């Protein structure tokens, strides 16, 4: 039941926020309380559970905690939730970033706060649902459920970006991209369920039941593609990334934090949890293409990031670049590579959110996101520029930050499988330094535009940035707790993928 509460708390609190709209700041406090509670519950789960790999993968049940309730029995659909190390890590991240996204809209959002927080909390509830769902129907439901509130967040509280189309068209683009690809995934889910039905006579959408389905190679490949396209749009992988820069540049800060920090992670989580174990052979066949797509993303994102003048678009493009590494790590399939991908997911969630929050704080002060209008902020603005430098360093993967650990593990772990792509991908790290430093240089250094000082970060803003910086450094210096968490899930993924090798309970060296 605890798992159900993790999803229900944000959703119920969201409704409460909507109804308390007229009482000033009440919705903010409710939202803050709800997300703090979720984070606390998730941390409690972490501390009380035993997530170690132990002697063998199958010594303990796969799920630390499970929740099962019949829902639509005539179709074999149940409310089946489960949590293991990987989903726990991501739920903790969701709670943490949820708290931050409430905090970062404290002064930014002044219109219709109740309805805003309703949308924000429903996104978070949907994301947690995606991380916990073990029934494919339920998973799809949460997957789609996040879209409508996100659409509202961008369309109603977004900014008008200079020189591009309105926020409504950005929101619509986001929605259509994800919805269209989601429908392909729905087709795949149904195809899988009916393939299982034809083989066994049991109609079920349960994760563990469907995982055992034997498929014809051709069908497996088609179904895999359906899942892959849906995840590829959200990750995003390069030819399908068109929605991301627009959505980010028009979204309010909290929307960007949720998009970059959480929604992108649902895609990589989906690949690990569903696409690889369900379709191991097809995925292995597809892996070279996926890895090269990842490399394309790394370079494409980096080059375009460098060319941006809008600081938020720049950060958006860096996300494409960073998620390219995650894709490589997932499809390379080594234990170290996949664990690296998990660490990178979390590290990128933190660092990208931090940069977006910074962008939001700059925007509140300067009313522009155009870097050509910034320049010389270091001398005018206390506190924020050093933070910007730190998070830029995290984003470029400086040792001591979580991003370094993630990227290093991915590259080192994938080298044995795909040496050439890894060598090429390493070049992306150089580009990462180039765009990160260029961003800080263009906005913070150089001659000041005016001598008038700008008010520095308040207590709330400093607290947010300190929390994020602390988390990034902690992940960089002592990533072991997260690695411990993901050890068992990764070992389980590796039982299926890559298909030729069998489980050896491989641990991180």
């Amino acid at each position, binding site marked *: 039941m605890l798992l159900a509460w993790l999803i229900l708390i944000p959703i119920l609190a969201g409704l409460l926020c909507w109804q308390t709209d007229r009482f000033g700041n009440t919705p903010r406090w409710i939202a803050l309380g709800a997300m703090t509670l979720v984070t606390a519950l998730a941390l409690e789960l972490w501390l009380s559970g035993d997530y170690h790999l132990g002697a063998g993968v199958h010594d303990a049940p796969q799920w630390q905690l499970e929740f099962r309730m019949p829902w639509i029995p005539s179709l074999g659909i149940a409310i089946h939730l489960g949590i293991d190390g990987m989903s726990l890590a991501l739920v903790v991240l969701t709670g943490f970033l949820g708290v931050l996204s409430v905090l970062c809209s404290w002064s930014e959002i002044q219109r219709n706060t109740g309805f805003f927080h309703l949308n924000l909390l429903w996104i978070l509830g949907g994301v947690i649902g995606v991380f916990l769902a073990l029934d494919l129907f339920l998973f799809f*439901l949460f997957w789609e459920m996040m879209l*409508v509130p996100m*659409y509202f967040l961008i369309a109603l509280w977004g900014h008008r970006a200079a020189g591009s189309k309105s926020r409504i068209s950005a*929101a619509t683009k986001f929605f259509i991209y994800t919805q269209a690809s989601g429908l392909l995934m729905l087709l795949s889910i149904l195809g899988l369920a009916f393939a299982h039905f034809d083989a066994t006579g049991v109609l079920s959408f349960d994760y563990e039941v469907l995982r055992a389905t034997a498929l014809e190679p051709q069908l497996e490949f088609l179904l895999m593609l359906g899942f892959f396209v849906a995840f590829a749009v959200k990750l995003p992988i390069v030819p399908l990334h068109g929605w991301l820069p627009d959505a980010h540049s028009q979204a309010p800060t909290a929307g960007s934090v949720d998009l970059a920090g959480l929604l992108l992670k649902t895609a990589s989580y989906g690949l690990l949890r569903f696409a690889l174990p369900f379709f191991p052979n097809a995925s292995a066949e597809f892996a070279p293409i996926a890895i090269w797509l990842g490399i394309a993303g790394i370079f494409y994102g980096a080059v375009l990031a460098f060319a941006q003048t809008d600081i938020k678009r720049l950060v958006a493009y860096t996300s494409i670049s960073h998620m390219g590494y995650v894709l490589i790590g997932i499809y390379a399939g080594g234990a170290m590579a996949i664990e690296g991908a998990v660490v990178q997911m979390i590290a990128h969630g933190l660092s990208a959110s931090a940069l977006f929050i910074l962008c939001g704080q700059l925007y509140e002060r300067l009313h522009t996101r155009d870097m050509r209008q910034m320049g010389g902020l270091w001398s005018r603005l206390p506190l924020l520029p050093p933070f910007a430098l730190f998070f830029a360093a995290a984003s470029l993967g400086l040792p001591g930050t979580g991003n370094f650990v993630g990227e290093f593990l991915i590259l080192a772990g994938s080298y044995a499988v795909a040496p050439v792509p890894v060598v090429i991908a390493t070049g992306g790290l150089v580009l990462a330094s180039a765009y990160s430093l260029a961003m800080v240089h263009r906005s913070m250094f150089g001659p000041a535009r005016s001598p008038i000082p700008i008010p520095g970060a308040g207590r709330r803003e400093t607290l947010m940035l300190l929390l994020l910086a602390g988390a990034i450094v902690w992940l960089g210096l002592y990533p072991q707790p997260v690695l411990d968490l993901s050890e068992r899930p990764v070992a389980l993924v590796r039982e299926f993928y890559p298909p030729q090798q069998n489980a050896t309970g491989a641990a991180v060296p």
Partner: protein
Amino acid sequence: MTIGSTELLALAPLLVTVATAVAVMLSIAWRRNHFVNATLTVVGLNVALLTTLFTHNALPLELPLTALLQHDGLAVFGTAAVLVSTLGCATLAHAYLEGLQDNRDEMYLLLLIAASGAIVLVGANHMATLLIGLELMSLPLYGMIGYIYRDRRSLEAAIKYLVLSAAASTFLLFGMALVYAETGSLAFATLAQPLQAGAPLLLTGLTLMLAGIAFKLSLAPFHLWTPDVYHGAPAPVGAFLATVGKIAVVLLLMRWWQELGLGRSTLFTALLAGLAMLSILTGNLLALFQGNVKRLLGYSSIAHFGYLLIAVIAGNTIGDEALGVYLLTYMAASLGAFGVLTLLSSPYRGDDAQGLADLRGLFWQHPYLAAVMTVAVLSLAGIPLTAGFIAKFYVVAAGVAAELWWLVAVLALGSAIGIYFYLRVMVTMFLAVPGRRRLDAERNWGERSGGLMTVLLSLFTLAVGLYPQPLLDLLR
């Protein structure tokens, strides 16, 4: 065949509806009173609905009532759906007609006659009842569409529908003539055998009839009347057209499909699949740049019946269930959407509320009314947590189970296109409020029967979206 008490009981819903029509007619002749006549209608429809439920429990399924009508699961479901939609339209009509300075009562009379036609149609087992039912349903509709006859658009829509509908009926009649010429019989059950043999005259006849039916369902390429008629018809009548007018006909098609064994004929499967694909694409594409919500709902209904045909073609058990779920959710969503438009409109205050501008900022002034519309639109778009998603899921499942990959792919494409205009309608309601509204809902809209009905419908939509199992059990 003699008609005994069992048969009378099975016919009770139809008889009650017709009796209510007579009662309303007499009541109008006695004294015009809008409230009395509306109440009489609603009470009669409710009694008919109760008897439907009673007959469902008391009588065996599969009971032939004369050679013309059939009492079975399909007929009971159809009767109930028709009665519920008519009830919805009647409450909406009451809210709408309050502002009309003219004769208001005849609307209910027409509504009841059309409903009895629809009930005949869903039980039709013979070409004769098919025609009688269809015409009994269509003729009052001409009057209903042109009810606000001082409005040019309303009149234009009525005449357009009259002419085109008559043309469709001639197709239907000519088709029947050909069928009769070939087989010498008009009962559905007797046609299955010759159809297997593939007599050319019979195939031609049935194809012509299919064209007539496709017209009533406004499937592309027989859809041209839909946007104009939806646009011109008063909003509650639009709701009737979109729900009763289509549910009854699609159920008839379903009965055809089963009794005649059309599913085994490659020709008809291909024809229907072609109609489905064309309708899905046409409906969604033409709606893309539509700024008028009523026309948009017209296009959306074209697409929706394209989706529904997939369930019909699939012809498996899951397809039968899909048809039921889809029709009910479509009905709830359409009535909800038209209901909100009705509550915002009043005759003689210019056009009905239908432009996107009329909906702008609705959420900030009437949050619950806008929430009803949002739920209806999301359900039509098939977004999770609404019934529309369950329905679409069912249809896709039926298609996948029958391995109709092309149709399912077109469905996915169509719904992806469709998202665009549904979102446009939805977000308009949440934008900043314009200075002054041309049309506004009454302050106490929620206490009116029409308002209450739309709220209940959207609760139904949400409930089914969250927990569909009871509904599925009911449909079994």
